[in-house]
C-alpha cells in the first residue's frame, strides 16, 4: 500500500472539507492546518506500517494479503468509532 501522492492528498483534503460542509460540521482550523493533518496522518501510517504488520499474529500475518490487513484495520477503527 503506497503512500499517498500529492494529488491524492489534495483530493482527500478537499473531500474532508466537502464532507464537513455537507454536515455543517464546525471546523476550528484553517485549510492549511487540515492539510497538514492529512499529510501527517499519511506519514504516520507510512512510518508505522511495519509495526502494524508485526502486531498481527503470525498465522494471520502470513495468510492475509496486504489489502486484507488494511481492511482489518479499517474495520476495527470503524467499529471502535461506532461503539464510542
Amino acid at each position, binding site marked *: 500500500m503506497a503512500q499517498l501522492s500529492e494529488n491524492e492528498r*489534495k483530493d482527500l*483534503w*478537499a473531500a474532508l*472539507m*466537502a464532507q*464537513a*460542509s*455537507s454536515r*455543517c*460540521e*464546525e*471546523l*476550528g*482550523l*484553517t*485549510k*492549511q*492546518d*487540515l492539510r497538514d493533518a492529512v499529510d501527517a496522518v499519511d506519514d504516520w501510517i507510512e512510518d508505522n506500517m511495519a509495526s502494524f504488520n508485526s502486531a498481527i499474529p503470525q498465522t494471520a500475518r502470513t495468510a492475509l494479503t496486504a489489502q486484507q490487513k488494511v481492511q482489518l484495520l479499517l474495520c476495527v477503527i470503524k467499529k471502535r468509532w461506532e461503539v464510542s
Partner: protein
Amino acid sequence: MASGDTLLILTPLNGEPLPTAFATLDLRNQHPVLDFDASANEGINFSAVLPRTYTGNGLEVNIHYAMSSATTGDIDWGAVFERIGEGQQDIDINGWASIKRVNDTPVPATCGHVDIVTISFDDGAEIDNLAAGEGFRMQVYRHAGDDTAAGDAELLFVEIKES
C-alpha cells in the same frame, strides 16, 4: 433614490452557473444558498437591469454569506461587471471589466452566522461604464486559492446599492 439606497437584491435563485467552476445551489435549513468550494476558485453570474434611479455615484456590492464549517481563518471575495446595454456588448463573447476583491476578511466565529462583505466600485470603468436602465451581468466569486477558511462559503444574498 440617492446615495446609500438599495438598487437591487439578488438571491441564490437568481444565480446563473458558469461553464466550469461554478458555485452550486443548495439548501441550508431551507435557506437557499450558493456553495463556494474551499479547494478551488468558484464563481456565479447574476443578470439584471440597473434601475433608472441610479444617479452615478458608484456601486457597493454587499455579499451576505455564512461558512458551512469554518469558525476561523479568512475569506477572499471578488466581483466584476459586464455592461450589456443597448448595442454595447456582443453577447456571444464576454466583456468583463476589471475584477475588484476584498481579501482576508475574518470569518464569523459561529459557522451559521451571516457576515456581510462590501466591494466598492466607482462609476465609470470599474462598472464597465454601466448606466441606469442598462442590462448587465455581475460575477461574484470566492478566491479559495488564496483564502484560509476551511469548508464551503455559502452566499445568501447580494445587495447592490448606490455608493
